[in-house]
């Protein structure tokens, strides 16, 4: 197993290198730069001043030099400064990562709390009313985009109850109650959407497993339904579900920009999208690399989980 992990980690190096090249190149291909965004609608800046400011920000260097500087910063775990705000990227990340992590975790918990029981119920009560209800809920979750559901929830909460999650992010450790109020609705919106795919996957894989010979044998042996479903069938049915959930969690960590925007949460999504819009190269590059590293790590963790779920799986 250690060999397997080491090989996977070595393989991730070219993946990350290629990702860095792609993101660096894409950012440079986009027209405009941080300076023009920073200047806003002023028009008072002559070409000489612009040139001076570009030099100050290192934007006049050849691309390969800019890339090498950035690559060294990443390797030495010192990603540098935001062009746009002059803030150390480390500080920006320290502010935004906990927000996204909390939102993603809560959303995953909510999503799984809905998806697994409903998926199991749907499978064991196939083609009955509860199955149809579960499937309708799942289809609704898949059909309703985050931006629509989020806007609707916040609008009608304000109209009907004169309430909405408090604005102005509060830290979980300093103001836990306010923080919880701020995160519950967005996590529910995200969780509802995530639960749809997970519920469908749980239902279909469980249905498949329930038709396996060993399950039939278990029934024949006279084992109770609860033991057959939860001990024998569900554990095996969860392998594709774990793969799906791993991917979902990676996507959530990469940034849930729409929900963060609607609920005014200062997470990774908002940080990255704003950085893209304002051509804040160092922030975008660092964030994308972080996402790439997170996805590589999550994939590895998901693969390692298989053996725990199914002891027959061996890593070579």
């Amino acid at each position: 197993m250690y060999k397997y992990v080491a090989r996977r980690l070595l393989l991730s190096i070219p993946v990350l290198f290629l990702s860095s090249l792609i993101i660096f190149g894409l950012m440079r291909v986009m027209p405009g730069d941080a300076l023009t965004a920073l200047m806003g609608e002023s028009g008072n800046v002559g070409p000489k001043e612009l040139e001076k400011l570009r030099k100050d920000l290192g934007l006049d260097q050849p691309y390969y030099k800019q890339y090498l500087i950035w690559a060294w910063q990443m390797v030495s775990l010192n990603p540098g400064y935001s062009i746009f705000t002059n803030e150390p990227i480390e500080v920006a990340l320290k502010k935004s990562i906990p927000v996204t992590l909390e939102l993603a975790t809560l959303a995953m918990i909510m999503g799984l709390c809905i998806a697994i029981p409903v998926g199991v119920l749907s499978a064991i009560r196939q083609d009955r009313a509860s199955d149809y209800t579960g499937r309708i809920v799942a289809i609704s979750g898949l059909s309703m985009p985050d931006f629509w559901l989020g806007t609707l929830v916040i609008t009608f909460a304000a109209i009907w109850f004169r309430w909405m999650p408090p604005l102005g992010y509060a830290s979980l450790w300093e103001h836990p109650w306010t923080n919880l109020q701020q995160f519950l609705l967005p996590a529910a919106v995200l969780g509802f959407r995530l639960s749809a795919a997970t519920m469908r996957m749980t239902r279909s894989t469980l249905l498949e497993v329930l038709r396996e010979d060993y399950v039939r044998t278990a029934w024949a042996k006279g084992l109770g339904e609860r033991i057959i479903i939860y001990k024998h069938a569900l554990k095996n049915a969860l392998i594709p579900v774990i793969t799906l959930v791993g991917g979902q969690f990676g996507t959530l960590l990469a940034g849930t920009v729409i929900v963060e925007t609607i609920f005014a949460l200062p997470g990774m999504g908002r940080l990255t999208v704003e950085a893209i819009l304002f051509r804040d190269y160092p922030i975008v590059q660092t964030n994308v690399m972080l996402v790439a590293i997170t996805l590589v790590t999550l994939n590895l963790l998901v693969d390692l989980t298989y053996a725990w779920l199914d002891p027959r799986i061996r890593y070579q």
Partner: protein
Amino acid sequence: MPTDDPRPIPVRHPVTRRDFLKRAGVATVGMTPLVAAASRARASAETSSPYPDWMPPSPKPPKRGKTLVRASAWDPPVLDPRLTNSVGLFQIASLTSSRLVRYPFSDEAANTTDLTLKGDLAESWQGSPDFRVWTFKLRKGVKWHNVPPLNGRELVAQDIKFCFEAYAKEGVQSFTFQEIEGIETPDKHTVRVHLKMPNTMFPQNLAEPVSVIFPREVLEEDGDLKKRMVGTGPFILKEHTRKVRVVLTRNPDYFDTGRPYIDEYHILSTPDAATRLAAFRSGQSDIHFVASVADAGAILKTTPTAVVQEYKTVQTVFGLALAQDKPPFNDVRVRRAISMAIDRQRQVDTLYGGHGILGWGIPYFYFQDKMPTAAQLGPWWQYKPAEAKKLLAEAGHPNGFESTLFYYEYFPEMTSQVQLVQQDLKRNLNIEIKISKLDYTTFFGRYADGKWDGMAWGFKTGYATGLDEQTYQYMHSKSTKNYWRFADPVIDELVTKLRKTPDRGEQRALTKKVLEREHDQVLRMWMPYDAGFLSWQPYLRNTGSLALRRNDGYGASTLARLWIDK
């Protein structure tokens, strides 16, 4: 609707679990028809505004205390007024920092278009007979905020000199301040500014919201002003956490003793428009801006106690910009034909519910007393497709031509507006336009670069208030703010003469000539525009916005006079 709204403030009753479930059920069932009804309401919006555009000051004695909260779309990346003129910065800087002179606050103004200059840091000011030297006498005892590194030291004339020289040296204000030849400070409280050319309107330029005075110490210590904003204004910047909040706290040493009235002002970063509206409806935000009369009506439907002011537009800030230094747009006949082929009234009717203006680029009160009628805008502003086609044929394009148009969507109506123009030009002149919708940075970079071909959806900056800013600074061929890329010797002569003209009546006559020339040559093809509506909670007093000075943006300094009556 008076500022002191007599309607009672609703008492909030706690919502029980039973109530909650009942209402949630009804809400879910009611969503679809409500959404549908909202869209119908928009389509059948009234064609004129039922809201007042002028809010008289409150006659009650002001109360001290409380916190004002506003959900804001703007989140300034940096706090350096030399680097950006963005409204996000000046919603804060207008409150932390002072200018030498300023325009009246809402409780001092005689009406929304009252632009009588008032002293801010300057107690008095005087121009020399040739208007090349301006002397400003500063208030005595004005203190910088009592925070490091200033620690409440007295503001002196040297501070003004340093600040103006720094503006001239680099950054977005350099064009304005480079007209200064030299600055003298004969004593601690006198600033004498020598200009390179006469300018009777120089104090107006110093009253622009962007001409705030910043301290030498911060610039010298930090090398820039990106992170700290220290001033002499009514509020002290207590916290600036990007994407979260800005907290401004009352400056106890503000030179206007007794003011400001509120203890704190919280600006909460809220990028989504629906969330800002929800914040207003739920009482989390005290001030909210909407763009259309239908939206203003929707607010009152769900929040009947809200006070709504129509923020009447006095000029247009967007229009069709043409690369008029190149063919075919360097031919005035082509520009006139295009202008006559566009049905501006249709835009007003369909996009702004009949509530917008047809479009002109200089605030009307600088050249006449009332809003211009369609006829007053001149022959090329009338919708005459047949004549337009004839004129284009005379210019050598009987079969039209192809062109491009790039834009950034500043607000949703803009996309429809661009498409209406595209349709009009195709239908009436067979001009085929390929539209590119760009993100802000790409748009701004390309537009400001000034080397684009074809057409762009042009703009002028939102902060401009004074006549010099509106004319010389935007229209002179040598100005870096002349985005519309025209070089018209007649305009150059007129706007330069305007600077030398002290008499208000003559200024109006000259401004009218500038406008007529601009319209005759179709130098800037302004398009219809609607300013919008400001709503606020009923307990706010002295909240009104004034022409060109919205209290949530560049006109935020007026919040020094706001008080909370609850």
